[in-house]
């Protein structure tokens, strides 16, 4: 691929700390290779800022290969910056070839009360950990792997469970939702654990505890709008939310669904 260079203008949310007010600050970045990832482009900006003696832009990242869920900023109004492209992506896997010379790119943090801003583009997503702690686990002893045929799992359920398990907990679903609902994330975990034999003993209690924690943390309610699934880098489908609701309704009629 030819090494194309573009000049862009970034409008980035700068906020020194959680309690201080923030604002969008404009930075021109010249000579950006279109082979760079979005985060590499931000690295480039930060190098320039550091040389000038300015505070670099804080943003979260870790694996940079789309599997850890650490990265995530809202780019031109879409979480992770998918924009109108049909390809779902994490911010770290978004490349500058998706932009044109002269583009003005607005970069903002996830905005939701349960995800408070720590600094610039970094938000605190420990609310998701609390939802997991409320019930996103199975209480069986780990140990040597059991005989694989001992617990048969229908392929259709295994596939659905595994698809739901690809959720990396990035929080883009919350960032995309006009209600700031964490239903897609919570429902992905419910579907992942609830369809496998190991998840059965706690299935109906789990859904109550997790949704209870979700609501208590101040996430909004679901209107089935579909913005979450459209922003999700792992294409977690909207129907996991129906799965959660089905389990929740069933839990009202199950003895093992009582708290």
């Amino acid at each position, binding site marked *: 691929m030819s090494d194309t260079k573009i000049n862009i203008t970034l409008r980035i*949310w700068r906020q020194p700390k959680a309690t201080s007010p923030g604002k969008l600050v404009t930075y021109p970045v010249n000579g950006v290779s279109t082979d760079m990832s979005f985060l590499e482009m931000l690295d480039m900006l930060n190098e320039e800022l550091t040389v000038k003696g300015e505070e670099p832009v804080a943003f979260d990242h870790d694996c940079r290969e789309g599997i850890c869920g650490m990265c995530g900023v*809202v780019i031109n*109004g879409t979480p992770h910056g998918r924009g109108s492209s049909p390809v779902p992506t994490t911010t770290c896997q978004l490349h500058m070839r998706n932009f044109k010379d002269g583009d003005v790119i607005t970069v*903002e943090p996830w*905005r939701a009360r349960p995800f408070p801003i720590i600094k610039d583009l970094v938000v605190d997503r420990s609310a998701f950990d609390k939802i997991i702690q409320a019930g996103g686990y199975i209480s069986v002893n780990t140990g040597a792997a059991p005989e694989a045929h001992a617990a048969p799992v229908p392929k259709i359920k295994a596939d659905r469970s595994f698809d739901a398990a690809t959720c990396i907990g990035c929080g883009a679903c919350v960032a995309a939702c*006009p209600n*700031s609902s964490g239903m897609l994330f919570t429902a992905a975990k419910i579907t992942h654990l609830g369809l496998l034999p190991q998840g059965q003993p706690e299935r109906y209690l789990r859904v109550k505890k997790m949704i209870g924690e979700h609501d208590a943390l101040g996430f909004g309610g679901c209107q089935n709008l579909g913005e979450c699934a459209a*922003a999700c880098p792992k294409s977690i489908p*909207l129907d996991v939310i129906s799965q959660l*609701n089905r389990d929740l309704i069933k839990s009202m009629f199950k003895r093992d669904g009582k708290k």
Partner: protein
Amino acid sequence: MAVTGLILIAFLLFHMYGNLKVFIGEEAFNHYAEWLKTDMLYPIFPKGGFIWCFRLVMLAALVLHMWSAITLWLRAKKANPDSYAVKKRLERTYSSSMMRWGGIILAGFLVFHLYQFTIAPRDPASPYNSVVTDFSQWYFVLFYALWLIAVCMHVRHGFWSAFATLGANTSEESHMVLNALAWIVALLIYIGFILPPVCILFGLIGA
């Protein structure tokens, strides 16, 4: 939200079907209206008794529906106080983004509608006359035609969303099926409700 919404949609379909009696003629329509008000489920209920149960259930559904909508709205406001400088809509439809303001419009107009035909009808002796007189005016027909757009947009997203909340959206295919059904119900409601007023306006009924 889902259950009360579906009750309201079921009522709309029933109400629409009933209104179509206006095509059969004055006697049939008035007789039907009279039956609704006095004879429905008689003699299990006393004369004129069941309509009040019916109204009570509709009112309860409506109040609970609005109460859940307001709760949802307040939760969203609390969860999402700072808006984005730039926000792009990827998936949500226009009707889904109008659920709240659209719902307010529906409720406001409902009061007018009840006033027009139930509380202070043109001809208390003949619902048929009341309907024909009012819908001979083009502005009433236009008004209802516009209002029905709001109703049907609300129903289109509401129908799909209610079934998703009740757990029926199990796959990509069921998403498509539910959405198709939602469109069919919304269009049915539009056509079924607007047909009598339009036919009255063009003199096909009543003249």
